[in-house]
């Protein structure tokens, strides 16, 4: 394998490996904001390790789809992680799938997870599936238009090229189109990763659940895969926000120093985003399910304004 292929593999493993840590950081920060000490940052890793050893339970009526879904969801999420520039721009792997592929791969994961929610015949799973698909469907146009805004300034949907173009033309980073698109995508990130104010990741009340309701039936290694995939999804969305809108630090040349800088920059950017998320989640309450479409339409309008601004600013 060539160096770029190795780098792509390292990038992917980095995302997969660091994702639970990012979730741990968010949890820790939230605990601190609530005046608690909170769990150690490594806590999600411990939970995954424990779940892997536990006995998996499967409902009587569940089919093979229920057991296949964790693998499908995990695979699509990891594939997405492989396509997102974490350390370097201009790797050949970005040509395997562009931003549109990323969005639809994530949709594929959601699709199968929703089916798995319906599979055991439990009302909670159906409820979660219905809600998750509703929100996914409504978030889709926002992502579409935001992609348009990004592709418009970069002239490409290739993720590596979007970041590279921004590095070459730093002035575009503060253009109104870009800032609006960032805001739109940030709201979508909250919706897609099941964060407050759209969904409460730590709720215990079945009737208020969205994402969690589909996982209620899962246990053991299947649950571990799904939890891990959810962590990777958050990581990937953060990485997209960080490296498409603020690409500085990404390695243009593949020297060890540049890569080390890229790693540091990534950690810094993710840390800032994690802090923002923790602050937001401490500050806002969960929206009623039927207020979520309003939030998403706000972000749709933001995205549309972003495109208009970029279009007129060309």
């Amino acid at each position, binding site marked *: 394998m060539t160096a770029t292929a190795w780098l792509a593999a390292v990038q992917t493993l980095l995302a997969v490996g660091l994702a639970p840590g990012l979730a741990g950081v968010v949890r820790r920060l939230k605990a601190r904001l609530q005046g608690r000490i909170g769990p150690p940052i490594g806590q999600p890793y411990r939970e995954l390790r424990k779940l892997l050893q536990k006995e998996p339970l499967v409902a*009587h009526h569940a089919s093979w*789809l229920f057991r296949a879904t964790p693998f499908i969801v995990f*695979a699509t999420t990891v594939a997405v992680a492989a396509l997102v520039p974490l350390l370097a721009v201009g790797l050949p792997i970005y040509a*395997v799938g562009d931003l549109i592929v990323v969005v639809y791969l994530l949709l594929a994961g959601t699709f199968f997870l929703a089916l798995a929610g319906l599979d055991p015949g439990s009302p909670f799973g159906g409820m979660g599936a219905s809600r998750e*698909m509703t929100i996914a*469907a*409504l978030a889709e*146009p926002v992502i579409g238009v935001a992609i348009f805004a990004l592709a418009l300034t970069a002239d490409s949907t290739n993720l590596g090229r979007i970041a590279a173009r921004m590095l070459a033309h730093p002035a575009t980073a503060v253009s109104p189109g870009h800032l609006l698109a960032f805001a739109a995508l940030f709201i979508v990130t909250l919706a897609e990763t099941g964060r407050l104010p759209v969904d409460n990741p730590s709720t215990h009340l079945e009737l208020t659940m969205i994402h969690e309701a589909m996982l209620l039936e899962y246990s053991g290694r299947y649950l571990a895969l799904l939890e891990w995939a959810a962590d990777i999804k958050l990581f990937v969305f953060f990485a997209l926000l960080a490296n498409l809108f603020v690409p500085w630090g990404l390695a243009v040349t593949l020297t060890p120093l540049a890569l080390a800088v890229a790693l540091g920059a990534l950690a810094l950017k993710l840390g800032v985003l994690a802090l923002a998320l923790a602050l937001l989640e401490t500050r806002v309450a969960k929206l009623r399910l039927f207020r979520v479409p309003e939030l998403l339409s706000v972000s749709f309008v933001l995205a549309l304004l972003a495109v208009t601004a970029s279009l007129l600013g060309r």
Partner: protein
Amino acid sequence: MPSALWLARAVMLAYAFGAVGALVSRGRAGRALGAAGALAGSLAVLCLGVLVLAGGTPLPLPSLVFPISGVLLRVDSLSAVFLLIIGLVGSAAAVYGYGYSAPAPGHPVEPATGGGAGGPRPHPDPRAMGTLLNLLLATMTLQVLADNAFTFLFAWEAMSLATCLFVLTDAADPEAVRAARWYLGMSHAGFAALVGLLLLLSGGDLTIPFEVVRQATLTAGVRDAVFLLAVFAFGTKAGLVPLHVWLPMAHPVAPSQASALMSAVVLKMGIYGLLRIVVDLMHGGPAWWGGVLLGAGALSAVFGILYALLESDLKRLLAFSSIENIGIIWMAIGAGLIFLSYGLLLPASVAFAGALYHALNHAAFKGLLFMGAGAVQRSTGTRNMERLGGLIGTMPWTAGLFLIGAAAVAALPPLNGFASEWLIFQALLEGFRIPQPSTALLMPIAVGILALASGLTAACFVKAFGITFLAIPRSPAAERASEAPFSMRAGMALLAAACIALGLGPFVVVPRLSGALEAMGLTAPGPPSPPLVTRPLGIAGTTGQMSPVLLAAGLLGIVALVHIGLRLAGARAPVRRVDAWGCGRIRQTPRMQYTSAAFAEPLRRVFAELYRPTDDLTVHVHPASEYFVQSIEYHAAVSPWIDRLIYRPMLGLLTRIAGRVRAMQGGSLHLYLLYLCVALLVALLASRWLG
């Protein structure tokens, strides 16, 4: 190339053989003859399509089979794409139809949602199904080969009638009769528009070859009129909102191989006609033409899928989803026309290639889904999803194949629905090249609508698959279901394989499609890059690349690695089977599950403005006290306001006019003779004045 001519002859002979064979012989032999004729003919059609697409040169097919003067046939790459569609779905439908037209395992037929005769109904006549299948395939083949207006019209009408008869195979069903009536009415309105536009286009002589029409120059006013007539004519055929009313009625009541053909292929004839007339013969037009198509397509896409979401009749759901997909194709064509009007050839060719590709893909997955729905209906006796469920256990093959179709229609990578939607996205993203900002701004909105439609499609097909095939059976019929016979599974498997192959192989398909673009008069722009750059295992649009093959390999690789990784990590505790978790409830019954209506409820509330839903809650209490509820009745309906807004006033008007006209019918022979004389006189005078 004489082989093409021979293939075309073989096609016609095979279909004729199948049609006659199915009609004259009974029982298994009749079914076999009908299926064999349709299969042989469709395979020949497929070969013809592949041959022409590979060769790339258009060739006339003189004196094909029947020596009627005025019939002109020709095959070029654009026809060839649609020949592929006919051949692919035709072969699958032929194989599937063999099993489907056999008497079903004895389940009393339950009425579908919303009316329909109760009680068992006699199974539709297999002879009619076999004959009509061959007839429909033959007329559609003729349709795409037509090279003059006369042949085009002839095939069009024959196809409409064959479809209508198919809808009527179960004539005892009042729903079918109603559907057929609507279908006839709408398709004849479309036919009238088609006659008008072809007369305008060919200057009155319907027999001149299209090549002459291609060279003709028309005034702008006439061109606009032709375009609007084309939108109406082909819109009715393709089921464009608001001309779609017949579609969700007609597609579900037909036998399932016919539903598959109607949704997968007959609708595409509207696409074919539009491309042939507007792009090929008229070379596109002003930007507003594209705008009209884009707008109508967007409307269809969103409306179609929103109505599909609420449906609990599985085949009606699929029919509405066809409206959505047709809308997506129209959007792509509209975008292509807009690009063309600004001289942006590269994005235009990506858009048209996306439209053609999506037409092909939609044929594969919608054919598959309709066949799956047919298998379910045949085995359980119902299409009502609220009475289905758990079929993945009793019909594992059908369930697996239907899942492939559902994932493809939801545009999940790396299946075929995604490949074409990706191309269409790529085309729309090029919108910023349009110099006029107000027009350019249409494109991001179109992207948003396309994304919304595909998100809603994913939700819709989670529901379609999840409620029908997963969880606990909701009725005894669903519990007793048995797997479809081998021939039906084989037909579905063929289309499922096509879904996967078309999804993995856009780098093979898309370059071939550029032949069709050339046939439409779109030539590659400039020497440096061919219309669509292809890479060894992936495709490039205008602004991005992707590689479905590598993606699929990557996904499989990750699954394998995870599997091995879990083993290595010692995660191999055996699975224990338990009751589904329901907060400790004593017993789980099928009625505790989420239903189709419940699944769609959040979206029904979100889009209440469009649906205009009506809810009716009636609580019957005991006469002694209002606290003893005896029964609760709940009705939820969606107001068909398009119906109310457009069709009811129009039908009222028509009925009133018909009432007036009836006054002329005195019953007296002398009066009728007088009418004849007056009509003759008027015709003579008109021909003299008009020249």
